[in-house]
Structure formats: structure tokens, C-alpha cells
């Protein structure tokens, strides 16, 4: 612990030196200016379509203050002429709205309708009493679902039930959690910025070779990583608390929600300095990572309350927090556990890779990855490390497949399932065979028999992990057919085990014994796996 604190203190000193010069005050001022400005702009321009429509007004028309509309005041004759020339999209004269039949004008009318509706509500709300202005009350009751078990037996008197909630139609907020997701995203932005500094710190020390000196000191690589991470983690947690305070969220709850996310983002950014070779690499890898993680976090959260799978993302929990809707510890663990697991895995990988030879060598990315895997697997006996690897990468596989699903949803409807299955088969085959291939390349394993044995263990490890995850998701969410489709769940455990074993053996043997290029071996294994999955799905 003492060592970790020492490293952490050293890190703070380094940062202070770097930003202590002339750039520091400017940077801070800029940061504040940006935050203030973005908050200010976000407040009234959350809507998309900024500046798309031109509207002419004449007479008694509500003031239009929406970034989508550019408004000109004209008299009637000119307004009609402009509308005819397509120079404006809509012309409003008092309570009369004139438009054309073409698409653009019609789009503008719809956008205007939404805006004017709100303005009119404001007006009548101010002129009349509340009862007069909003004469309709809708009492809503939620009954036992027709497909699931009935919460209320069909013989209860519905009329005697008190409404679960009462709404005024024109005053109900839209159910889309748009604003809350954007607020939740506010937490992610600083975390990403902070983790970029964490990355830079490693790169800096790598360039001036201080890391080499550190590594020869009597401290473990884990202590170095944790020590360097500590100040940034504290900073990230402080920012989270601060944002929660400013947005009137629940501070302890926000910390609990975002702590696993912070760990996850840090874990991923730890990989960047370990793998990069040139500065451009870092920029592009960091960009890729940022987009993928943001997508992974935002996409599910948009479907809060409409799909249980939304709980994949911790942002859903934050959205729930802002909507003041309760959630249980199961909903909390569902997104948090995989993230924590990935953090643990990254810590292990990081400690194995943090050695001078690996850090300083300039090799191709694929070479670097295979070296990294070798370093991780060589930690213990192959018969133990290979299945363990297959088991431990499951959360990562699961996350990749979710991202693939988002990708695939752009395809024509008939292709979505096929493409997802193919991509899943590909990822699974990579994960199961890569360890064996690397071990053979480093001559740790040589004989046919041990390759087959390892293939079996790898398949077993993967299957155990997969079924564990499936079990967990069945208990968490009801839409298991989705997880089922993702993982190609079979009915008997023996059949998928044999299948996994066969595919892994195909890839490993083709690569190591028949000397096929890895991509080709992988392609053949993936194809076999894909057809097996399709066959299983047909049978179900």
C-alpha cells in the first residue's frame, strides 16, 4: 500500500510540473469556459435540425425561439411570394399557416406543429385557470400482463381500483429518456478526458525511459499501475460527485453507478500505452476506444423502460436515478459485474505486459497482441491457463457481440440475425483458438495430442463461462432469446461442448499443423461454427 501511495504522489508531482508552466492557467480557463458554454448551449439546443427551416411570419404569431427555425418578418404579399419561390418553407399569418406540398415544407410544418403546440399551451395556461386550461385527466392502471402471470385476478372490480397514476395529456413529458441520457453522458466526458491523461502519463514515462528505472525498483508492476491510476481515479470520482451535485442527483448513488464505469474506462485506456508504437497509433486507438465505449454506454440507455436489455449499460441506472425510478441490486450488478471483470482482467494483463522488452520493441500490432497473449498464458501451465483464458474473456466477448448487434441493425431485416451469428461465431473462434496458436508458435506445445487436449479444455472453459453468463442473464432479464441468439445456446450441454471442441480443433490444427495462414484457418472454423449455429436455430 505504501508503495502505491508513493507512486501516486510521484504521479501528482509529474502532472504539476507538466502543467505548472505557462499553459496551465490557460488550460484551466479554457476547460471552465468550455464546460460553461456547452452547458449553456445544451440547455436550449438539444433538438436536432439546427437551422434547417426558414419561416416567414406576419401579424400576431407566437415568438419562435427554436434553433431549428430562422424567422423573417414579412408582409402577406411578400410572404406568399417567398413561399412560392421556395425561399421560405412556411408562412404564418396570425393563426393561419401556409405551406407547400413538397417534403421540405411538410417537414417544417411538423416541426412547427410541435413547437407551436407548446407555445399555445403556455398561452392558455397563463390566460385561464388551471382547471379550464387543462380540462382532461387520465387515470392509468397497469394490470397483470396478458401474456405473463396476472397480478390482479380477472374477477377484481377494475372500476374500484385507485389509478396508479393520473396524467394531463398535454403536460406529460415525452417518454424518450433523451435529456436524461445526455445528462448521464456528462459523467462520461470528464472520465474519458482524465483517462487520456492517465494514458499520456505512461507514454511519457515510456519515452523518457523512466518506466525502465521504475521496473527495476523493488515494486511489482501491479503496484506501479495502481499507483499511477490512483490520482486519476480519485479525480474521476471527485468529478462524478461534483456533477451529481450540480445536476441535483443522488451523490452516493451516482458514485456507486459510475465507479465500475470508471474502472472499465481506465482498464481499456491502460491498454493503449502498452500497445502503441507511434503517436499516431495512440490517437487512433484512443479514438476507436472512445467511440466504441460511448456507443456501448449510450445505445442501451436510450431504451430505458422499453427493453430489459437496457440494463447492459450503467447509464440506464443513471437515467433511472434522474427519473426517480427505483432499481434493485440485480439491475445494478448486471452492467457492473462485466465491467469490474474486465478491469480485473486488464490489471492482470497489464502486470504481465509491463516489462521492458514488451514495451520498447517496435513490432506489428498483430505481433504485439500475440506476444501479449503469450505473456499472459505463460504465467502458469498451459492446461490451466488456456481454459482459464477462454473463461475470463467471456465478458469482453459479450461486449463485442453487443457492439456487433448495433452494427448489424443497419442491415436489411433478413440479414441482421445472420450477420450477428456470423460475427459471434468469428469472435468466439478467435478467443478459443488464439491462445493455443500462440503457445504453439512459441513452441510451448508441440504434439497433436496436446493441441487436441488444449482445444478441448479451451472449449470447456468457454462453454462454462458462456453458460454461467446465460444463467446470470436468465435470472436478470426476461428476454433471454436475445442472449440465446447471441451465444447460440443449445439444449444439451454435451452437444455444444463437442461442437466447440471440434471448431477450436479445426482452427488450431489447420493453423499449427497444416500451416494455413491464421485468417484462413479462422475463416474455415468460423464457417463451420456459423452453419452449426444456423442448424441449431432452425431446430428450435
Amino acid at each position, binding site marked *: 500500500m505504501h508503495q502505491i501511495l508513493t507512486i501516486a504522489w510521484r504521479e501528482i508531482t509529474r502532472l504539476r510540473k507538466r502543467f505548472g508552466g505557462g*499553459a496551465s492557467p490557460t488550460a484551466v480557463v479554457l476547460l471552465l469556459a468550455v464546460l460553461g458554454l456547452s452547458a449553456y448551449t445544451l440547455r436550449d439546443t438539444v433538438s436536432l435540425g439546427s437551422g434547417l427551416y426558414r419561416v416567414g411570419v406576419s401579424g400576431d404569431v407566437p415568438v419562435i425561439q427554436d434553433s431549428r427555425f430562422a424567422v423573417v418578418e414579412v408582409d402577406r404579399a411578400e410572404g406568399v411570394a417567398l413561399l412560392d419561390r421556395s425561399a421560405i418553407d412556411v408562412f404564418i399569418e396570425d393563426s393561419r399557416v401556409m405551406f407547400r406540398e413538397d417534403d421540405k415544407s411538410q417537414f417544417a410544418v411538423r416541426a412547427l406543429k410541435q413547437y407551436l403546440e407548446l407555445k399555445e399551451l403556455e398561452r*392558455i395556461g397563463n390566460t385561464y385557470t388551471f382547471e379550464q386550461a*387543462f380540462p382532461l385527466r387520465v387515470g392509468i392502471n397497469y394490470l397483470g400482463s*396478458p401474456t405473463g402471470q396476472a397480478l390482479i385476478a380477472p374477477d377484481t372490480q*377494475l372500476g374500484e381500483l385507485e389509478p396508479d397514476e393520473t396524467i394531463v395529456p*398535454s403536460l406529460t413529458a415525452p417518454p424518450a429518456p433523451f435529456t436524461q441520457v445526455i445528462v448521464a453522458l456528462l459523467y462520461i466526458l470528464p472520465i474519458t478526458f482524465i483517462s487520456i491523461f492517465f494514458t499520456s502519463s505512461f507514454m511519457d514515462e515510456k519515452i523518457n525511459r523512466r518506466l525502465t528505472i521504475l521496473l527495476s525498483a523493488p515494486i511489482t508492476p501491479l503496484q506501479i499501475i495502481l499507483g499511477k491510476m490512483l490520482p486519476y481515479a480519485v479525480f474521476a470520482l471527485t468529478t462524478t460527485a461534483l456533477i451529481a451535485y450540480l445536476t441535483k442527483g443522488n451523490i452516493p448513488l451516482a458514485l456507486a453507478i459510475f465507479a465500475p464505469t470508471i474502472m472499465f474506462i481506465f482498464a481499456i485506456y491502460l491498454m493503449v500505452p502498452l500497445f502503441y508504437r507511434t*503517436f499516431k497509433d495512440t490517437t487512433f486507438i484512443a479514438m476507436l476506444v472512445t467511440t466504441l465505449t460511448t456507443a456501448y454506454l449510450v*445505445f442501451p440507455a436510450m431504451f430505458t423502460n422499453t427493453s430489459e436489455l437496457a440494463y447492459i449499460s450503467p447509464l440506464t441506472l443513471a437515467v433511472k436515478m434522474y427519473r426517480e425510478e427505483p432499481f434493485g441490486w440485480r439491475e445494478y450488478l448486471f452492467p457492473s459485474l462485466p465491467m469490474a471483470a474486465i478491469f480485473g482482467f486488464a490489471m492482470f494483463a497489464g502486470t504481465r505486459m509491463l516489462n521492458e522488452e514488451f514495451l520498447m520493441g517496435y513490432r506489428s500490432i498483430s505481433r504485439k497482441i500475440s506476444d501479449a497473449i503469450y505473456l499472459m498464458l505463460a504465467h502458469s501451465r498451459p492446461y490451466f491457463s488456456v481454459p482459464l483464458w477462454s473463461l475470463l474473456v467471456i465478458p469482453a466477448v459479450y461486449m463485442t457481440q453487443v457492439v456487433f448487434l448495433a452494427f448489424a441493425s443497419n442491415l436489411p431485416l433478413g440479414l441482421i440475425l445472420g450477420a450477428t451469428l456470423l460475427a459471434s461465431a468469428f469472435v468466439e473462434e478467435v478467443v478459443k483458438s488464439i491462445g493455443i496458436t500462440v503457445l504453439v508458435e512459441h513452441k510451448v506445445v508441440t504434439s497433436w495430442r496436446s493441441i487436441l487436449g488444449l482445444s478441448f479444455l479451451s472449449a470447456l472453459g468457454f462453454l462454462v463461462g458462456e453458460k454461467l453468463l446465460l444463467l446470470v442473464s436468465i435470472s436478470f432479464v426476461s428476454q433471454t432469446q436475445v442472449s440465446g441468439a447471441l451465444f447460440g445456446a443449445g439444449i444439451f450441454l454435451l452437444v455444444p461442448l463437442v461442437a466447440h471442441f471440434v471448431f477450436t480443433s479445426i482452427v488450431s490444427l489447420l493453423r499449427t499443423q497444416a500451416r494455413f495462414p491464421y485468417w484462413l484457418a479462422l475463416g474455415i472454423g468460423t464457417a463451420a461454427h456459423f452453419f452449426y449455429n444456423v442448424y441449431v436455430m432452425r431446430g428450435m
Partner: protein
Amino acid sequence: MIPFLAVIKKELGSVLRDRTIIISILIQLFIASFSSALLLGMLSLYDADTIMRFSGSGIKIGMVGPSENMLHQFLVQRGLQVTPFGTLEDAEIALFDNQVSAIFVVPEKESSTTDIRLYLPNSDAVSALIRMVVQEPLKQYENYLRAQQGIDVRYTDLKGKPATSFEFVYSVLLPMLMFFPAFVAGSMVIDSITEEVENNTFQTLLSAPLTVNGAVNAKIVAAMALAFAQCVAWLSLLQMNGVEIQNTTLIMILSICVAGTASTLAALGASMLKDRERSQFVYSLVLLTSVSLGTILKVSPIETLSRLAIGDQYTGLWHVVAFAIVLSILWFLLNRVSRRLLV
């Protein structure tokens, strides 16, 4: 001129060799497909028109109350199937029998405040969909009740066409595809300059008959060329997908100007700070600031781009020239400052 071209060639060569450009293109492809997937998902869950188009026929509403009441009519106008029931008990049986998916109860007589009841299945997904599609008829009913009391609400008869996709394509997708390459170009320039500084190779570069300005400018031109190529690709891909885009030449010039501005800004930062960590940080911050400032001051390149693409009659060459002027001022500044790289 020849060393200048050689530096450009070297920059482009290294990008192609490292395959980093592939990552960049993948990112853009991902963002584009991801955001349209998001839009599609949002529309099919949160947009009443889309819901009606895809699953409208599956939604049947049970109605208990006076025959042919106004709410009944508004629901039918929305395209929903409405089945009248004599008593709530009958409707309840139908609900648990899966014949209707929701029940409305409307009182016999409308009074100053009318209370109606809505019974929904206890499934988040289904009840959310139903609430989305009955929202509009309920509002119409509310307006009808207001009219009964002599309260006139204006602009209630507007219809139009759902604009979300249109707004998304022209104000999000197109600007993102056109300006993301610009953002990447800036980052690339910083990496390239600071790497030369860290490795002390700038001096070597200058032993060729090339000034500091020449070397830095070559890096900027290389980054701009890359951005240009990507913009051409995205623009033609969008057009092939049936997205109508006006003023393509002006859009290309604008995109190049923005890419040039980002790269020049980046080079300016790198010349002053000289290390990657701070330069990238300050660059991202400055970019964020200018975007927010631009939005507030209504000189946003994003808005100009959207307007050019939809063929707005008040947007044209002069708007693009304004951005070119910004670029030339920055470029002038850079050529004053880049000398610092040698110190």
C-alpha cells in the same frame, strides 16, 4: 518544391503503412451506422407514426362509454381499431383474453374537468407503445373539451410529415461525416509534429532545402488531402444511398476549409506547447470551445453545411468564404509562430 512534396509523400505513406487510416474510416463508419441504428430504434419506440406503420394493426383498444364519443373518433382517425363494450366487466374479460390491448373508460357526460380511465397491460414495453400512440388522440380530445368551454387553441390542425429522419441526415449525419475527417486531420498534425520534436528529427528534416514553415505546411497539406479524400468518399456514398445533396462543390470547399482550420489550429498548438500530451488536450478543448461558441454566435460551420446541403436560398459562396478567411488568418499566425519549433 520537391522537398515539400517529399514530406507530403512521407506523411501520407506513413499513414497508409500504419493502417491507422483504416481505423479512422472504421470509426466513422461505426458512428454513422451506429447513430442511424439509434435513430431507427428511437423512432420505432418513441415515434407514434413509425409505431403505427410497423405495429399499428396489432394495437386494439377497448372503449367503455357513450357510443361514438369524440375520443373514440379521434382514436379511429389515428388508425387504431376501437371496440366498444357495454360494461367494464366485458372489456376486462376481453383484455385478459388478449382481444384488446388497452381499455379506455369515458364518462357519460363531459363536465368542466373530465376524468377518464385507461387500463394498460403491466408490461413496460407494450404499455409504453400504447401510451405513445394514444397521446395524440388524447391531446385532440383535450382540445375538443377546451373548445366546448370556449377556449380556442390555435394551430391545432397542422399535420406535416415526420421530420426526424430529415433532420438527422442533414444536421447530424452529413456534418459528422464531413467534419470528423477534419478533426482527425488536426490530431494527425499534432502527432506528426510532436513526434519529430520528441525524436529530435526536426533538425534532420531541415537539412533538406526546406524551411520550418515548409515542413509544417507540408504536414498540414498532407492531412488536408487525406480529409479531402474521405469527404469525397462519404459524399458520394451518401448520394449513392439516395440522400439528395445540393451545392456539392461548395460543401467540398467548406469541408476542406474546416479541415485546414483544424490542422492549422493543431499545428499552432503543437508549435507553442511542443509536447503531445498538452497539445492534444488544448486542441480538443479549443475545438470544443469553437463549436459551442459558433453555435451560440450562429456562425457554425455545421449549420452552414446543413443549409448548403438542403439548398437553402440564403446560403452560398459568401458563407464559405468567411470560413476561408478564418483559415488564412490562422495560417498567417502559424507561419509567424512555427519558428519556435527550432528553439
